[in-house]
């Protein structure tokens, strides 16, 4: 198991631990989501460890699409402006469509769906920027930013997708040609580092929910 898995697991454990505080908030849906994340990572690891198959791309392709849909749904809840809510909500079927088209006509089953991921990443970064913009123009909020759980979730998503754009764009190229070994190492290093940032930010938001015991998320 890689180090980032423990960060994921810690985040899941914290969501369970503070379930009582989370259950009245929208981010309670992180509990099943993180359970699924940990499960997928574990299955992926089993595939690799027991050498069940050469590639487990199908599993992560499905999960990546689901993850993007999940974040888009979260943003659709947290946006304040009705149009933005609609954009985030309509992004969900659009991503599904892109994912199916990619699967059928472009990258198929034997490749990691980088096109879907890049398309989703672009929107995630935009959603994060828009959410932060909404946050700073809001007239009624006086809370410290660092005390707001969804702010931390937003930071995690923002840095994760922003940081993984380049490595995902060059994923195919890096795993082909002569870069296979070192490219793979670099890919793992960057994605695992970003994963740690992402799940740490989730953990912080769960701790904040417990500390605040308010439902402004």
């Amino acid at each position, binding site marked *: 198991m890689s180090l980032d898995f423990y960060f994921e697991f810690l985040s899941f454990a914290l969501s369970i631990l503070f379930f009582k505080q989370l259950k009245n908030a929208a981010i309670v849906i992180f509990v099943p989501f993180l359970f699924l994340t940990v499960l997928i990572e574990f299955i992926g690891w089993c595939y690799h460890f027991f050498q069940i198959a050469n590639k487990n791309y199908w599993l992560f392709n499905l999960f990546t699409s689901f993850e993007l849909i999940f974040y888009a749904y979260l943003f659709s809840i947290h946006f304040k402006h009705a149009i933005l809510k609609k954009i985030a909500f309509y992004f969900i079927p659009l991503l599904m469509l892109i994912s199916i088209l990619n699967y059928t006509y472009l990258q198929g089953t034997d490749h990691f769906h980088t096109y879907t991921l890049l398309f989703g990443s672009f929107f995630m970064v935009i959603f994060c920027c828009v959410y*932060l913009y909404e946050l700073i123009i809001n007239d009624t909020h006086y809370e410290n*930013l660092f005390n707001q759980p969804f702010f931390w979730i937003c930071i995690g998503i923002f840095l994760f997708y922003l*940081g993984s754009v*380049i490595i995902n764009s060059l994923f195919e190229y890096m795993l082909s040609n002569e870069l296979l070994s070192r490219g793979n190492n670099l890919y793992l290093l*960057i994605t695992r580092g970003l994963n740690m940032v992402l799940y740490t930010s989730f953990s912080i938001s769960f701790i904040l929910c417990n500390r605040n015991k308010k439902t402004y998320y």
Partner: protein
Amino acid sequence: MQQKQEDLLLTIVIATLFFLLIGIFYLLLVFMFYQKQRKNKLEKEEMKHQFEQTMLQAQLEIQENTLNYISGEIHDNIGQILSLTRINLNILAESTPSETLNKIDNLLGKAIRDLRHLSHNLNSSILLDLGIIEALSQLLQQIEKTGKFKTELIANQSILDFISTDNSLILYRMIQELLNNIIKHANATQITISIKMIDPKICLLTVSDDGKGFDISAVLHQKKGIGLRHIFSRAKMINATVTIHSNKPTGTNILIEIKK
């Protein structure tokens, strides 16, 4: 070839770091802007609060001046006229004794006494002369004299000495308003004022009655609840909090917590 690969991998690392740095910079900008906005909003709120306090203070000063003026007029003018009327009436009664004249004399006497009490209640100098506890005691005695209420004051004479003269006047007016409400609306027979220290820094003043109680939220949302709203705004001015416990059949307890 090896060099080319290394260059490519290095470019990827640098570009990723560059993207992340841009992201962090953006987040920093957001944070700084947000903090600035927050500071401005809090300052605006503070200014608004101070303005409201000043307005309220000015309103209270005007009200006190008006009340003192009315009190003076009642005492010095109307009171004098009624006293003169009574003297003339007595002279008339000596020359032509009559039962009706006696009745008129008694009624005039009552009117003069009532007006004197009213004048004292309106005049804030009573507080300066007697202190708030004694002033409250006299206020309750007057209410008891009507024969409709039993009153009780449970307080140490010096318990409210920490309050400034201005604040004690505001507190006195608040209690007057509460007592007026009890007299007008509560159908009560017992009125109690108790004052005690519940903490070295907090004094609790309770005004309670055994009347019919009232629906607090309904009164506060009606236009009729102006008196009650004034009590809340006055409490704010003297750094006090007001809590109302009212049960329809068992009466009302109004708790005023005054911080030292």
